[in-house]
């Protein structure tokens, strides 16, 4: 981890150095809600086009904070923890120097998780159904991750701006009980973009490439059992299993994306329309030597997304109506493989055929409305938001001649309200959010044959989670202290929040306590 710490220190130093440099040339005052304000004022920040940072309302904005979060409860997916505590360091800033616009982000997260079962991957909540796991319970899963993100945008000519966003993530994790999975995740993405300035229109285009790799190595550090069992899940709870002293899996995912944005304005009404498409292929292999097999499958997915943002801003307020609709399709293609002795007398797996076994389709739509009222100083006075979202999820597993399936649809609505109370040297902003999710429909058809390897408990538990009706109440208070004018920071802030989730039909609940302390600059 020494390497990661070095990266963190260097990056932090750069963040602060950049801030000092910027402050020497321009004076400004910000608050913790400046980032929310930025996103409301500049809809491009909610797009996939980094070149849009040139439309930021001010020349610089930054924040750095440390966070601590603890969560506890029995309302969670099987592979997610019932108890988790994590601390994080976070830094993010926008900066405008001459013709160049910069964006930087750094995040370090250190977490300890308990109560997550049947999981040996760093992040079990990605869409792929091909998850390796074990039946070991009561183990602490320790995770650390770093996320570096850097973006630059520049006006090349009067009519063209271009930008580039590069991100790098690395994560390491290990369960603290044998047989323990050790995970090493590396992720790199690059996204070039461009914006053309037309007469009354701005046209943006972005492309993207992302590569994610995960090494999963099950080891025994304390014990020396010959028979630990590893479960290779394949969707809808279907799995194959294998016993071995150790097990190794490698996952590699390549994603390609493209998007287009169109911005038009009529008086003070701004419209940004965006369409994005993403295609991704994740392959995995099991085994470390030459005799590699695929005990899972290829995960081939694509997603089409449509975003519409309408923003109306005047001296007193910002009103924003946004719509997001998306369609996701994922196919799990599994291999029919057999071992054979090759010409060199080594055993290797050969692929005889591969077939579609699993399909997941997700339809989502969300309508959101924000209303922000300014104070005389152009700081936020209050912000109210209301949203409603619908989600339809369909899954099928082709266990020919049978086809097993599960599907559900949910509607979710919520509102939040923040009020900012100002005093000469400090401000307090209480925030409240209430969400409610209601299951509209559900259908599930699992195997009844006991000889079929399907972990119904895992799947049914997760299905209950997804189809539960729940209410979430979140209370948060944010205290900001105006600092004396220095070159370092404008405000010191402390944020404390408490989220309570409770299902109305399962009797389960989850609590999350979040604290953050940091600076705005």
């Amino acid at each position, binding site marked *: 981890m020494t390497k990661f710490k070095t990266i963190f220190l260097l990056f932090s130093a750069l963040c602060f150095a950049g801030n000092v440099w910027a402050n020497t040339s321009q004076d400004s005052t910000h608050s913790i809600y400046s980032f929310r304000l930025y996103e409301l004022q500049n809809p491009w920040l909610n797009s996939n086009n980094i070149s849009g940072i040139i439309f930021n309302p001010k020349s610089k904005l930054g924040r750095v904070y440390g966070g601590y979060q603890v969560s506890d409860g029995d309302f969670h997916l099987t592979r997610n923890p019932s108890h988790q505590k994590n601390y994080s360091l976070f830094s993010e800033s926008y900066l405008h120097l001459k013709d160049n616009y910069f964006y930087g982000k750094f995040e370090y997260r250190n977490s300890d998780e308990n109560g997550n079962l049947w999981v040996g991957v760093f992040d079990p909540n990605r869409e792929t159904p091909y998850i390796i796991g074990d039946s070991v319970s009561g183990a602490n899963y320790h995770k650390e991750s770093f996320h570096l993100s850097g973006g630059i945008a520049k006006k090349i000519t009067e009519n063209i701006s271009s930008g580039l966003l590069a991100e790098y993530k690395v994560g390491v994790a290990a369960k603290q009980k044998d047989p323990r999975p050790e995970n090493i995740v590396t992720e790199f993405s690059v996204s070039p973009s461009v914006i*053309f300035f037309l007469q009354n229109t701005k046209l943006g285009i972005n492309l993207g490439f992302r590569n994610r790799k995960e090494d999963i190595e099950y080891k025994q550090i304390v014990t020396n059992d010959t*028979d630990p069992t590893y479960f290779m899940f394949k969707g809808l709870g279907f799995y194959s*299993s294998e016993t071995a002293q150790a097990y190794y899996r490698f996952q590699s995912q390549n994603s390609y994306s493209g998007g287009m944005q169109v911005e038009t304005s009529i008086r003070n009404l701004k419209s940004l329309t965006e369409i994005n498409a993403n295609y991704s292929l994740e392959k995995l292999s099991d085994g470390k030597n030459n005799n590699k097999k695929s005990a899972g499958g290829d995960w081939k997915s*694509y997603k089409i997304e449509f975003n519409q943002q309408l923003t109306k801003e005047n001296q007193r307020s910002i009103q924003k109506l946004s719509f997001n609709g998306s369609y996701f399709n994922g196919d799990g293609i599994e291999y029919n493989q057999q071992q*054979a002795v090759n010409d060199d007398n080594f*055993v290797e797996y050969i692929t005889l055929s591969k077939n*579609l076994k699993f399909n997941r389709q997700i339809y989502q739509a969300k309508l959101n409305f924000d209303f922000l009222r300014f104070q005389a100083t152009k700081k936020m006075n209050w912000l109210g938001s209301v949203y409603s979202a619908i989600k339809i999820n369909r899954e099928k597993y082709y266990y*020919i*001649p049978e086809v097993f399936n599960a599907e559900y649809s949910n509607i979710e609505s919520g509102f939040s309200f923040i009020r900012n109370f100002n005093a000469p040297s400090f401000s307090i902003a209480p925030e409240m959010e209430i969400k409610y999710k209601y299951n509209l429909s559900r259908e599930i058809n699992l195997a009844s044959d006991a000889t079929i390897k399907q972990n119904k408990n895992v799947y049914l538990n997760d299905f209950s989670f997804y189809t539960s009706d729940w209410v979430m109440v979140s209370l948060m208070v944010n205290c900001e202290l105006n600092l004396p004018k220095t070159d370092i920071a404008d405000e010191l802030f402390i944020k404390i929040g408490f989220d309570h989730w409770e299902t109305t039909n399962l009797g389960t609940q989850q609590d999350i306590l979040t604290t953050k302390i940091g600076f705005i600059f």
Partner: protein
Amino acid sequence: MKKQGSLIFTFLLSLLLVNCGKDDIAPSHLVTLKIVYPDGFTAADFPGDVTVTATNTNTSRVTSVVATPNGTVTFELVEGTYNFNTVFSVTGDDNQEYTFNGAISNYSLLMESMVDMNLILADNTGGFIFKEIYYVSSKTPEGKSYSSDQFFEIYNNSGDTLYADGLCLAVLDHTTTSKLTVWVNEDGSLMERLPLAFHTWIVPGNGTDHPVYPGQNIVIAQDGINHITDENGNPNSPVDLSSADWETYVESSGKDLDASSVPNLTVVYTTSTIMADWVISTLGPAIVLFRFPNSWESYVADANNFMIKPGSSQSTEYMLIDRDYVIDAVELAKFDAPEIYKRLPAELDAGYTYVEAGPFSSKSVRRKAKMIVNGRVIYQDTNNSSVDFLHDLVPTPGVNPTVAEQ
């Protein structure tokens, strides 16, 4: 600029169309098996109860079909890899019962096809058989693995007095069925001769020193002690082997326990000079009981009976024996592996058995008692351990069941 917009839309659409082509769902195919009697056997009709099973190696799903009177079986199966098996008996004109095994392993069904299933006559003329095998071992109260209580029980299943002198016991190279053995021919079939790994043991004697009467057994222990009570044992062990007939004492290691009350088998040959004890794979060995055609000393002296492992860079030579030498053999499989790659040819064991509870579960496999005649148990021996053996039993060395078993 409109042109540029059109280009981008075209790009996005082609990204989706090119990369998001639908993959096919696994199709089903017809496969017809023609059951063929071995040379020298003819039968007008097949019995009405000849059932052939097809086991999908990936899903473990079993499909059974009864053969037509002319010996054909047609399955409609989803594309994949299958093991086909059958075992049945017919009464010949001579009023003798003949048992036949049919096995096709790891057959890749990728299109409609016809396959011959060649039957093998089970050589169940009686004689020595493996009655019980305890290979999975046990765990100590501290949770440590304990393998010293492994044992083999050999039984005289015939009505004649047999002699244990010269009986040999060994395991085949390759410690698990989850990986394909490299001891294969170019076409992927198992080599004609069987490669033996680790120690090969022989019962000493001049030929008539150790009679075994009908219904009697020989227990061969790894360590001939009462494993439950001995201070070197394991209180969790299920067996007392202090009255075993023989033990496999590895004298050369200097680390093996030599039980003074139990005589030692003789080492014929070993591929390992570092093994402290003759610990066999708890994941499932392939074991053979055999006799050399002549003296074992002359066999070991013949370099033609040895071979380096195919593909190996090491110089270790493995002793090979002919299939004809084998008296009984049992394939013990790794139960939960997705695929099972057999090491024994179908003529020696057309199936496999296993301990579902897994390694160190203190369970054994034992042959089914087919019938009890005048108090003597006759065990089932169709050369197909899938149907001959019961699994996950509490070990009972030297004890026979009192009722016939299905």
